[in-house]
């Protein structure tokens, strides 16, 4: 086992060597511009892109013409939300999303508010799922888009996508989902799930960084988005810019591998995840965040009360994880996702996200369990809050001197 071990696979995944192998010829030999229609260099590049488009489409049950390649999920999220708003502005200006979405969705919505959009931010329940009745109540005759993520990046909960899309369509709006964390991890089928637009990214599923896709439905209904970048009219006019051929080829290969291996992988990872969780929740005052039934197989988010997340991560020095603690960001605000679940600030500060992946071994998980236990106990020995808790002092009744 090599140290440090990587347990932050929701941030990014290492590339699968088989993906790299597929990409290599497209850097130096098949380097052509996929839009060069009149010589063999262009044809070779185009062939690589076409094949990748099929591989990507197949993973999500789409037609290859429905795949718009982008620079990643952030761009795909922006294109979907801003592009739908612009394209359908004569129909309405109302968009519904929820408070636990990724910033790429929330900030795109905030941007549109300045341009006259009305945005409803649905709250989530304490398990991270939205309330379907609240969704339906929020829809008006001005609603053009419902944007709810598939699987959450911090806690891994999976929203009831089929039900959400059915409600959305009943009222004549479009359904968009940011499926960055879900595609390649669990079966996602745009037809069965009733998805009209979907963003996802290669680097979350063992592909390269800098490439992603927006699925845009072509039939029942035919969906269009207004391009957000002007140029050569690539990608059916929805996303101009010379295609990132090696990246796209790698994305295609990554999708093919996920298609072949994800069922086995999900089984293996959820068993490891369960082991990690059950071993760590033996520690007193530790809590799993988010719904434990409807969730991605590879994410565990645990709060260890009375220790602070960043301090804890420093003690877990041979492992890469992430924390909902404020201290990891410049903002000093703890995770808005965990706060949306109704967690108090101190529990949000005390959270650690473990993200397992294709290359995570059982040995590594065992190591992580031991390191984490040791770190939590070390930090609790240093924690005045732990001492007060053990003395039976109600911390909610202490008058803290905030600074």
């Amino acid at each position, binding site marked *: 086992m090599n140290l440090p071990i990587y347990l932050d696979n929701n941030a990014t995944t290492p590339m699968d060597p088989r993906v790299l192998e597929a990409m290599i010829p497209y850097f130096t030999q098949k380097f052509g511009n996929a839009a060069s229609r009149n010589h063999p260099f262009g044809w070779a590049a185009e062939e690589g892109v076409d094949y990748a488009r099929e591989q990507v489409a197949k993973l999500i049950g789409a037609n290859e013409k429905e795949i718009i390649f982008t620079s990643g999920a952030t761009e795909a999220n922006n294109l979907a939300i801003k592009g739908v708003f612009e394209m359908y502005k004569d129909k309405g200006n109302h968009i519904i999303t929820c408070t636990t979405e990724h910033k790429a969705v929330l900030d795109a919505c905030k941007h549109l508010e300045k341009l006259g959009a009305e945005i409803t931010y649905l709250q989530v329940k304490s398990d991270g799922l939205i309330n379907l009745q609240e969704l339906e109540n929020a829809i008006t005759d001005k609603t053009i888009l419902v944007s709810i993520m598939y699987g959450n990046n911090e806690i891994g909960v999976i929203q009831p996508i089929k039900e959400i899309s059915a409600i959305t369509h009943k009222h004549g709006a479009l359904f968009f989902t940011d499926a960055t964390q879900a595609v390649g991890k669990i079966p996602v089928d745009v037809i069965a799930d009733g998805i009209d637009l979907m963003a996802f990214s290669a680097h979350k599923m063992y592909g390269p960084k800098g490439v992603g896709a927006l699925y845009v439905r072509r039939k029942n209904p035919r969906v269009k988005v207004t391009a957000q970048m002007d140029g050569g009219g690539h990608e059916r006019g929805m996303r101009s810019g010379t295609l990132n051929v090696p990246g796209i080829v790698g994305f295609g290969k990554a999708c093919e591998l996920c298609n072949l291996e994800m069922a086995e992988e999900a089984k293996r990872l959820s068993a490891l995840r369960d082991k990690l969780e059950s071993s760590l929740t033996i520690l007193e005052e530790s809590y799993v965040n988010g719904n434990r039934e409807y969730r991605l197989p590879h994410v565990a988010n645990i709060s260890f009360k*009375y*220790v*602070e*997340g*960043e*301090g804890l991560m*420093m*003690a877990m020095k041979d492992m890469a994880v992430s924390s909902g*603690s*404020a*201290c990891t960001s*410049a903002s*000093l605000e*703890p995770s808005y996702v965990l706060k949306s679940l109704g967690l*108090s*600030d*101190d529990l949000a*500060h005390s959270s650690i996200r473990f993200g397992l992946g294709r290359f995570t071994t059982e040995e590594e998980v065992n190591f992580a369990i031991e390191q984490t236990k040791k770190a939590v106990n070390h930090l609790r*020995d*240093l*924690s*005045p*809050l*732990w*001492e007060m808790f053990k003395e039976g002092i109600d*911390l909610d009744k202490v008058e*803290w*001197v*905030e*600074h």
Partner: protein
Amino acid sequence: MAYSDKVIDHYTNPRNVGTLDKSKNNVGTGLVGAPECGDVMRLQIEVDANNVITDAKFKTFGCGSAIASSSLATEWLKGKSIDDAMAIDNMDIVEELALPPVKIHCSVLAEDAIKAAINDYRVKNGLEALVSEKSHH
């Protein structure tokens, strides 16, 4: 952002972790910060008849820099007179630990904890609480 060697040293081998008997008259306790903010420091001093700090202990809930700041503070406090202790400035801590700007609040909290402990000791012994001239807030 990497931590400085001194932060790592104090974090890994924190000095003077523990608890003094807060019911004793010659022990001053400062508890500053709030769990919601992600930092709570408790710093305690024991003072002899000559107004010299003979012992100091801390416990901190917070990031590595907060733990290191309070560990360093206890090291500095031991053997100092109350007056000298009162003069410890948060920027001394920033400099010693090479804290980056985003972690300066950890040193401020440590200075606040020192002053709170001293004032607790003073009030217990019938003296007025001292008000710091400078304000960080």
